[in-house]
């Protein structure tokens, strides 16, 4: 689907204001019982001429295990575009409550690398509102281009679930997909994630969602402890794949059991090569070495 009509914002929205506004909206809707319908906003948001802060970039790269190169990591671009995506979900006419949304999966296509010094035009919109056995899901699409350019550099599709929210006119899928049995392979890496993991990623990504920050703030939103950001985990897996992925690649992740902090996470990365030994893709899966539950899985694949 192509981008709908866009509203151009003067600057990148502030995530902290968006979260405060989302909380206020949630409270208002609870009191008034108002719903904003069963349709996604008819327009997206756009900000032009966005540049990355180099200090923030370096801190991000060091946190997720990337070397501090001049090329923006694909996960950093996600973080750069995230406030814009949030602002779409924060619109008055957005039909689902923003707070408490669950990130189900994420797909990124990094087609042309982005240098840190480049100014970028970023667009974001919501699409594909549909049922889920546990609520309602939708896709948040973000596209990144060089300022004033037509060529798409980076495209991300984040699928979110509003758990327990069922909108009139949107049917649940008839059969819930049965979760496949997961048997943990031998790990290739073991991550030790400290209790401050969420705060550290919030500091470099700007995503100060309370469920990631502390036990207390997470409990206020119904979590028993704080959980790691999904995109932090996926970005570390991407960094782990390393230079083999080259300049142009796709990067998918599906999130399953959340990672409650602190945690140990086991990871397996397996490389798939063609007959000539050239890299085709790296598949990764992460799980809890204690419970054996799968946390997330995905793939980084060549676009060639």
């Amino acid at each position, binding site marked *: 689907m192509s981008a709908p009509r866009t509203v151009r914002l003067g600057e990148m929205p502030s995530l902290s204001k968006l979260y405060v506004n989302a909380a206020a909206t949630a409270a208002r809707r609870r009191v008034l019982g108002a719903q904003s319908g069963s349709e996604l906003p008819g327009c997206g948001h756009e900000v032009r001429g966005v540049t990355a802060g*180099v*200090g923030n970039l*370096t*801190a991000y*790269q*060091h946190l997720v295990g990337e*070397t*501090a*190169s*001049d090329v923006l990591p694909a996960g950093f671009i996600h973080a750069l575009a995230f406030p814009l995506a949030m602002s779409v979900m924060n619109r008055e006419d957005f039909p689902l409550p923003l707070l408490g949304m669950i990130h189900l999966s994420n797909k990124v296509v990094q087609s042309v690398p982005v240098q*840190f*010094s480049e100014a970028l035009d970023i667009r974001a919109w919501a699409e594909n509102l549909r049922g889920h056995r546990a609520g309602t899901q939708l896709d948040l699409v973000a596209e990144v281009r060089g300022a004033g350019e037509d060529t798409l550099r980076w495209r991300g599709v984040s699928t979110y679930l509003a758990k327990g929210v069922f909108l009139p006119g949107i049917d649940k899928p008839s059969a819930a997909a049965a979760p496949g049995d997961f048997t943990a392979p031998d790990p290739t890496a073991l991550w030790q994630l400290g209790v401050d993991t969420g705060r550290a990623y919030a500091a470099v990504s700007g995503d100060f969602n309370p469920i990631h920050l502390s036990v207390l703030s997470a409990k206020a939103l119904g979590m028993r402890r704080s959980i790691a950001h999904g995109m932090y985990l996926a970005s570390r897996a991407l960094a782990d794949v*390393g*230079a083999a992925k*080259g300049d142009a690649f796709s990067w998918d992740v599906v999130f399953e059991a959340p990672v409650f902090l602190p945690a140990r996470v086991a990871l397996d990365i397996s490389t798939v090569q063609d007959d000539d030994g050239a890299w085709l893709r790296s598949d990764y899966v992460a799980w809890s070495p204690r419970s054996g539950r799968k946390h997330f899985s995905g793939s980084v694949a060549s676009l060639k």
Partner: protein
Amino acid sequence: MPDNGTPAPGAMTTPAAATQLRKAVVVGGNRIPFARTGGAYTKSSNQDMLTAALDGLIARFGLQDERIGEVAAGAVLKHSRDFNLTREAVLGSALSAETPAYDLQQACATGLETVLGLANKIKLGQIDSAIAGGVDSASDAPIAVSEGLREVLLDLNRAKTLPQRLQVLSRLRPKDLAPDAPNTGEPRTGLSMGEHQALTTAQWKISREAQDELAYNSHRNLAAAYDAGFFDDLMTPYRGLSKDSNLRADTTPEKLAGLKPVFGKNLGAEATMTAGNSTPLTDGASTVLLASEAWADAHDLPKLATVLDGEAAAVDFVHGKDGLLMAPAFAVPRLLARNGLGFGDIDFFEIHEAFAGTVLSTLAAWEDEEFCRTRLGLDGALGSVDRAKLNVNGSSLAAGHPFAATGGRIVASLAKMLHAKGQADGRPARGLISICAAGGQGVVALLEAH
């Protein structure tokens, strides 16, 4: 003047028969611009910068997924977590993950020593290709905890019971919490490198004007080299920098003369060393691609210069017998003698400018009959270096000096200059590299146009 080309007496060693050895050639190099400390690379680690320089080299010579024979690099200021710095940089680069690597450290001679060690392996046929390099960050320098805190922490780890732990902790004093920052002081003398050089500068009666002139020429030559595009195929930009940030293309002898002395103010003699004629603390990284001729040919890559020979020397500086940075004065005549060469056979002199005083003291020593006879065992003065052949594209005073990265900067630049010159007097053009290092050491090398 001595008879150029005559081997000096006292040359005890002879080069290994060249016919038995392969040639090790310099294919090219890549570095990131050098940045003054606290500048563009403040938050970049040694591993980040070395990887950036390495990835630029890989891109320039098409080495993606290539298994290189060996990579050697190092850093002078190094975090303990960077014990495998070079191998980690290789793993983070586009080279094949099956490329082995090792770290080396010989103070400011680190970069040149990696070139010599790897070139020797190529000459012996142990490897066919190699990448030499070095990196340093004075911005992202390691800070250690104090000895007091370190001992308490180690004992705390060994304590088994709560009372034992409390007893260990009770030894902690407020002063133990002050961190230990690295410094450039010599462990045995407590003098900084600048203070040591100030002693040597005074000993050789090097004038303030001569030092400022050398510094001025360094900036002028480096600026001209940039203008001529000399660094276009020797450098990749990093963190927004595309030129060495220490370069002052518009500096003048007057501006340099106006600076206040910073070293040697308490030595009695006139203080002559300023921030203008001393190198600043700098961040940066450099790499050099070395190969056998066959490997370079098979990969359709250039062969700029041959690594002919190298020599290390050290001086007894601790009680002032020689200046801290004077070891190259001893290494160069030994290297020239072993190869049957004199100053007249050299077309480019690359003498690392730790301080202008270092270069000028070394040149003065080689012109001094007494020194050359009594200390170098020569018949007379070694000779004068033609200033028109000295650091012709600038050196450390202008470019800056990220300690371990300087050797790679010089080798790559010199190889390019030799290749461009080709022949001189009916023989391949030759270049001499001289690098002084902490601990009273020095490493020197001879390169020849291929």
